[in-house]
């Protein structure tokens, strides 16, 4: 008799709209999309130039977004990588120090991978909280950048190559933008289609379960940090080429900006929830906003206040949080009002 008996789990949607609603309900980028929409509308009214000169806007988005993409890989696993900005600086300096550009690029990217490897080692093998491990790296690598560069910017030898690198390659798109798009596509496919990438969600969402299921958690963590390290060094290389010089203080504004992008993109810092797409949307919103600010020459302090408020809004309006707060307010009132009536 039991054979015939079946238990129904979860809702079934058959209609097209039902399916659609379900799909949307399952996404995590809701607020990012809203923010982006608002930003785009406001900007299109105030600073239409942002769109006519879209290649510039794309450049800014790529500047913020690239590091953020790598960071997302780590955040998905519930880890943090504070060392990205310093990684960017070190790899830039290393590249500039090497006369041959090609070799320089290769070595710099290698440095990025190595840093990721070290971070991964401390987090996965030694078992240090990634927030702290990468905090240590943040200091150490920044110091290293100063030591290597003798505390001053380093010009690359072949400046012409650098200048050329800064120019549009396909249509109006500069190599930076193309690399950014490439990085996005690759990472998006990685976390949505590749087994190892999917398992990032398991590592972040329920690590014990991941262990029990035989997922090589440590290897995944290594992979994650190496991705963020590599992407950070990639950004370092791109900046160095485009600027024809490496600044040991580079990336000071990058760490915070890329975190902002990832968070606004709906990535959950405890891990397991989020998406590369979200990060892209977050970065786009921030990038467009910044370009608009630049065009209208808004004072930096005012810009900071703006960004801060948006970020604060982004974290406090996480659906779960919001529901909790509203719920408790309502329940408190509920009791009281009914009581008086």
């Amino acid at each position, binding site marked *: 008799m039991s054979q015939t*008996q079946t*238990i129904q789990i*979860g809702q079934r949607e058959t209609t097209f709209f039902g399916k659609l609603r379900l799909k949307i309900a399952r996404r995590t980028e809701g607020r990012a999309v809203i923010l982006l929409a608002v930003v785009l509308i406001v900007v299109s009214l105030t600073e239409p130039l942002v769109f006519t000169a879209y290649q510039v806007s794309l450049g800014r988005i790529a500047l913020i977004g690239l590091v953020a993409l790598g960071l997302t890989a780590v955040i998905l696993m519930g880890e943090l990588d504070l060392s990205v900005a310093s990684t960017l600086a070190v790899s830039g300096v290393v590249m500039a120090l090497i006369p041959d550009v090609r070799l320089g690029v290769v070595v710099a990217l290698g440095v990025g991978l190595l840093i990721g490897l070290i971070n991964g080692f401390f987090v996965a093998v030694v078992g240090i909280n990634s927030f702290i491990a990468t905090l240590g790296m943040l200091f150490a690598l920044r110091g290293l950048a100063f030591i290597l560069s003798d505390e001053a910017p380093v010009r690359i030898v072949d400046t012409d190559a650098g200048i050329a690198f800064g120019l549009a390659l396909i249509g109006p798109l500069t190599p930076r933008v193309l690399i950014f798009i490439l990085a996005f596509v690759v990472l998006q496919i990685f976390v949505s289609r590749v*087994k190892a990438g999917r398992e990032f969600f*398991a590592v972040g969402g329920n690590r014990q379960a*991941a262990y029990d*299921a035989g997922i090589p958690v440590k290897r995944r963590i290594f992979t994650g940090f190496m991705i963020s390290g590599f992407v950070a060094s990639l950004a370092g290389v791109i900046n160095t080429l485009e600027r024809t010089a490496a600044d040991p203080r580079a990336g000071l504004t990058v760490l915070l900006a890329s975190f902002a992008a990832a968070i606004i993109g709906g990535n959950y810092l405890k891990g397991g929830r989020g998406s590369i797409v979200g990060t892209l949307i977050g970065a786009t919103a921030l990038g467009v906003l910044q370009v608009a600010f630049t065009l209208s020459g808004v004072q930096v302090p005012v810009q900071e206040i703006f960004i801060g408020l948006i970020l604060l809004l982004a974290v406090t309006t996480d659906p779960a949080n919001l529901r909790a707060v509203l719920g*408790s307010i309502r329940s408190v009132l509920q*009791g009281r009002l*009914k009581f008086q009536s």
Partner: protein
Amino acid sequence: MTTSSPFAADVVIEARNIVKRFGGATAVDDVSLEVRVGEIHAVVGENGAGKSTLMRVLAGVIAQDGGQVLVDGVKLETGAKNSIAAGISLVHQELSLVPEMTVAENIMLGYAPTRLGFTKSAELNAIAAKALEEIGVSVDLNERISRLSVALRQFVEIARAVARDPKVLILDEPTATLTPTETDYLLNMLQRLAANGMAIIYISHRIPEVFRIGNKVTILRDGKQVMNGNIADTTPDNVIDQMVGRELKLDLQSRRVANPGEVVVRAIGIRAPGVNGVDLEVREGEIVGLGGLVGAGRTELVRAIIGADNRTAGRVTITRKGKSAIITTFQSAVRNGVAFVPEERRVDGLALAMTVAENITLTNRHELSRFGVQIRGRISAFAQDLADKVGLRPPLITLEAGMYSGGNQQKIVIAKWLGRRPDFIVLDEPTRGVDVGAKAEIHRLVRELAEEGTAVLMVSSDLPELLELSDVIHVVRDGTIVGTLPASEANEKSVMSLAAGEKMVDA
């Protein structure tokens, strides 16, 4: 009662003289057992008797310090991958699903089929669907686990174990979160799987279940194997005696005569997620039991009543010594003499990393301080007194709560509330995962509370417990009270029929 194995076939998994130590302590001490094809081998024992540890060893999750595990005569190397390869699946006590991944992905977690590293989603869904079909559960494969009800996730869990199409299936307390109907359903499923040639190792506190489906039984006590034989050759009472190692007077003494006083708690029109308008009263010295299936909304109801979770509507008033107050937030509840023993002990009940004394201090901090400054001397005396009162073993208040076993942890939770001499105490599954000995002591404490005039509201999926303790039982289904049974009319049948609704009674 028991059906002997349909196959007279060979041993699938064999454990020889397994020894496992933690630090200096021996968790599993020289345990040997063997399970044949189509056989259901039950493992019983008090909490902390070593069952879970033994299972981890058998499943190759942790390495043993002595002895060896053989699967089809081949030595099993430690490591999740190895055990999966060897055809062993373990259904954990804790749910081990990934919230933001789909049902299909969870079922195939860790070994989704791939081509060049890319997941083959079609194939993945196919296998998952087949597994779900095999256990007769229907669900949207692309649904995120985070959007499924907690009680029902257990089935995805089991589907995963089955999907690996294992030779040996190990289940650790699978029915802990299931309703009788679901349990019954699961037990049938297991017998079916066994009949199809799977070797099953089944851990449970629930002796009746063991006797219903088990062929063989292993009893552990303090890590030692005190019995290993055919179910047919033993009796429930005998098993229980072996488990606790002493003649235990199972609490079958006649129920106390209750003489409820004034209404202490009055809840009106309670609504919350999973609760659809409930009115409820609890009187002084009365034990009100909430029966029903898991997922019926009992936990949600009690948490909404005391403000542990937000309610969307409803009013709760508590009346003590003539003064009545209104309960909104949980803080206001506690301020007005409410105590709460939550379902998830380790998560909601105790700070495991803090000492027993500290855990007890938490709820009594105002009494143990002057002008917000704690009085050290008073604290230790106070905590020690309570630890003794609830029969904590060992009564060391400087030990971390996490060092104690489930039963003792539950005693600590109760102790920290006893200190407040509550007027109203809510107990949610007070004896889940608690060994028989501790269970009896917790029952004693609940009775004493009622005797002293405390109003008691208890949720329990353990029918005998519910029937034995409650003065009146409200049966909850789909977030509403579908029936109220005074002690006199309450029995397993009457409660279950209300809880399950007529159509499922035969199940």
